[in-house]
């Protein structure tokens, strides 16, 4: 049901409060309800509006700037599901193992993979999409990406709001949290466009889930209390750190005989073919994860002679196509959000984002492209033209905001634990890609939804009950 008022009496009715309404939120809500009564608080309106977009404006520095982070932070019902391109692929076991110098995830890969089926159902994709990368040939893995019409949550507004046991309130921004004991959240400071900020109390048995996006979750945990001191929920001092993206660039043009690429698994649906190097090559070369998708045709008149040569050598049909790298960015404490003194109209302190690619990030793209290109060449399947200048000067992000409230085993190294509970707080949980310790080379949506399914089922057993 859609509510038009949020006050102390209203919020007291619920077992769980979920802040945000995107892919990190609805799987939690649907796992909890109707067994538990759930209130969803969305800071924006049903559709995007300039007034709420203004809340996402940041200072941005580094390789990813000029509105990069702001433009991927959607303050409206459904959040980033309204901009999502629709690419779905799971992480692989190696992405969680921490063996590349990055921290290991605090959960076993099998624990995550078990929830991919639930996530695929939520995203309306076939189960075959959840398969891990398959060994193809000499050092290469084949891992197609599912690419189909994206699920837009905003188009399902009426159905989602009619979920039994669930109420929704729009245009209410959660600014910061309060806690007298620092063991449980005891209140929220919220604001709406026509109202002064107000404090709404929470009981320790009420569960609070922040699902406000890669920047939004950290922003709430970084808001300084009026009396000064450490922000509520940021006792680790790590909220906002380890900001990550997926470096994206067309790292090569490739003349390829598509007929000699392997087919996707049975029942996979529409697939973008993509290649990776195997673990042996990856670790021997100290590489991060990198997926190279064979995309659409490119027009490159200066390559006409080479294309004609390889057309003769490889046989028909060959095309000159783009090879798009979706790569991993190593987590760095220096890539971080900072809180600025300036406040938005909501009263929340604004953010400064600083994020740069490392030489290892970019070398991963170059070397993976080279390793894959050499193997395609030797197999007589394709030839690549490496785009060195593009890799080292034009690499951008993919709109994937990750890592700012990473999960881990202790407060010394992370913001939340394997259950996505903020260390030290009994009733504060985080959902979304902000909890990823590493990003792998997989689009994050499927993993966001899988973790949200897992969190929702976990909370169903505890929300509304005494610990």
């Amino acid at each position, binding site marked *: 049901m859609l509510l038009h008022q949020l006050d102390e009496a209203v919020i007291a009715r619920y077992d769980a409060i979920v802040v945000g309404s995107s892919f990190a939120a609805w799987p939690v809500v649907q796992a909890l309800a109707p067994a538990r009564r759930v209130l969803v608080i969305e800071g924006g309106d049903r559709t995007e509006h300039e007034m709420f977009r203004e809340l996402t404006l940041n200072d941005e520095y580094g390789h990813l700037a000029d509105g990069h982070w702001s433009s991927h932070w959607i303050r409206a019902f459904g959040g980033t599901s309204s901009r999502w391109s629709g690419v779905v692929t799971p992480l692989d076991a190696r992405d969680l193992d921490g063996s590349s110098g990055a921290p290991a995830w605090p959960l076993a890969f099998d624990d995550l993979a078990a929830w991919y089926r639930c996530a695929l159902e939520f995203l309306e994709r076939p189960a075959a999409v959840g398969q891990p990368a398959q060994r193809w040939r000499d050092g290469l893995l084949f891992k197609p990406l599912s690419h189909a019409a994206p699920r837009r949550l905003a188009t399902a507004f009426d159905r989602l709001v009619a979920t039994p046991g669930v109420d929704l309130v729009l245009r209410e921004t959660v600014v910061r949290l309060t806690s007298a004991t620092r063991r449980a959240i005891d209140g929220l400071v919220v604001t709406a466009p026509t109202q002064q900020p107000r404090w709404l109390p929470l009981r320790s048995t009420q569960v609070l889930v922040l699902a406000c996006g890669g920047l939004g979750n950290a922003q709430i945990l970084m808001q300084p209390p009026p009396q000064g001191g450490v922000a509520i929920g940021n006792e680790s001092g790590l909220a906002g750190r380890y900001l990550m993206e997926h470096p994206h660039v067309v790292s090569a043009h490739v003349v390829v005989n598509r007929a000699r690429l392997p087919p996707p698994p049975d029942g996979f649906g529409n697939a973008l073919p993509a290649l990776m190097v195997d673990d042996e090559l990856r670790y*021997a070369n100290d590489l991060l994860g990198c997926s190279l998708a064979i995309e659409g045709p490119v027009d490159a008149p200066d390559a006409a*002679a080479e294309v004609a*040569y390889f057309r003769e050598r490889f046989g028909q049909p060959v095309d000159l196509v783009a090879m798009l790298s979706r790569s991993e960015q190593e987590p760095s404490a220096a890539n971080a959000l900072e809180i600025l003194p300036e406040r938005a109209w909501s009263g929340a302190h604004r953010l400064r984002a600083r994020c740069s690619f490392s030489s290892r990030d970019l070398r991963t793209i170059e070397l993976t492209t080279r390793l894959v290109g*050499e193997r395609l060449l030797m197999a007589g399947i394709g*030839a690549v*033209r490496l*785009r060195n200048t593009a890799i080292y000067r034009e690499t951008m992000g993919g709109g994937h905001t990750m890592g700012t409230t990473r999960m881990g085993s202790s407060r010394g190294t992370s913001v939340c634990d394997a259950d996505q509970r903020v260390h030290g707080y009994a009733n504060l949980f985080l959902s979304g890609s902000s909890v990823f310790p590493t990003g792998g080379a997989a689009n994050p949506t499927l993993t966001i939804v899988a973790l949200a399914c897992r969190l929702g089922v976990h909370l169903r057993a505890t929300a509304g009950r005494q610990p």
Partner: protein
Amino acid sequence: MTRRSFVGTVAAAAAAWTSAWRPARGAMPPVSGAPEPAPGPGEAGLTAWRVVDYRGWIVRPEDRERLRADAAARPARQVGAAGALQ
């Protein structure tokens, strides 16, 4: 020594030095049957000794020879008046 003969001497010395270190044509190891050289740092699994770069393309040496020959056989593109290099 005149300026002209000095320039000629330097040019001859440079040519001699260059031909001394340049490997003979065909010195590339054969593709099959040759032992793999030990990879250097950051080169594990690369087949760099079997492939070469040609205008950014990663190709076999024989591909490069063929592509170069094809390019040489095409009429040169006119980019301005002959001898107009600045």
